[in-house]
């Protein structure tokens, strides 16, 4: 844990004991899986787990009951897995795949949501995307929007500063010291 706080101001005790941890938050996220991406990947991972596990159970135990719904659940699970993996990797190629999968996801929520409302006979059992994700607090509806916004932020940022893209070595790349990877516009993390 770094404890450096801005050395310029406030020479005396800071008003809150945890003033130091708040300081790195001002730094820009160094990859698609950090900063807001940390939360995004967590929620995508959660839906990857729940949608695919649910589909496996449904297809294995009672496929004939609602085949369309269960296949759509499985499809949603695959889409969530792709988004989780690509957002975690964060390379330019992974981000391009993520844009496609988030777009498919958004289209899928809208299409399946509408379909499930119009044709209830086809959906005797719910999918993740039924009723626009109403069974999951409408998180499936807003998740792809935040995903695409996050990816747009990254494409714009790397378009203006190509050097930042965490391009080298998708898999093995480890955020050993993010400060090294992010030399631009980074408010100094530690007092020099």
């Amino acid at each position: 844990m770094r404890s450096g706080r801005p050395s310029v101001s406030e020479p005396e005790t800071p008003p809150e004991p945890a003033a130091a941890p708040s300081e790195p938050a001002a730094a820009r996220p160094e990859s698609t899986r950090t900063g807001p991406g940390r939360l995004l990947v967590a929620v995508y991972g959660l839906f990857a787990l729940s949608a695919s596990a649910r589909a496996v159970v449904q297809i294995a135990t009672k496929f004939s009951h609602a085949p369309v719904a269960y296949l759509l659940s499985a499809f949603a699970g695959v889409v969530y897995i792709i988004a989780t993996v690509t957002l975690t990797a964060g390379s330019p190629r992974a981000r391009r795949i993520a844009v496609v999968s988030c777009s498919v996801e958004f289209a899928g929520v809208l299409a399946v949501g509408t379909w499930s409302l119009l044709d209830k006979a086809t959906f005797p059992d719910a999918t993740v995307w039924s009723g626009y994700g109403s069974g999951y607090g409408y998180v499936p509806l807003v998740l792809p929007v935040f995903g695409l916004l996050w990816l747009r932020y990254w494409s714009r940022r790397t378009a203006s500063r190509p050097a930042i893209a965490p391009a080298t070595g998708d898999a093995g790349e480890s955020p050993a010291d993010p400060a090294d990877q992010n030399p631009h516009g980074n408010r100094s993390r530690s007092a020099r």
Partner: protein
Amino acid sequence: MSSVNGAVPTTIIVVGLALAGYALLMTALNRRVGFGLLAVLGVLEILLLVLVGIIVAKLVGGGRPAGLATLIGYLIAMPIVPVIAGLWGAMERSRWGPAVYAVAGLVAAVLMVRLHEIWPAIRV
């Protein structure tokens, strides 16, 4: 016995929602994950493991829910989710680490309601 069965899921809901509120406060205050959040998440994890033990004991004792496969999936996922969320959130150096903890707390609370739907013998 039944009071014990109901007490643990209810406590998990309370602790999960408390964790979510505490974590969202930390996010709003721009803090990273600290000892307090780790401690509450640890308590939640212990409670979930206790509940897994209670449910397994019910299954061994001959109880059978309608959706047994789903229940087994929940038994596996329930204790794993806070561990992964805890590691993933602690790796983050910004306010978004506590946000991951908030998700873990909410998920634990929602899982209790779903468990009751799968198997009404698990009281909330």
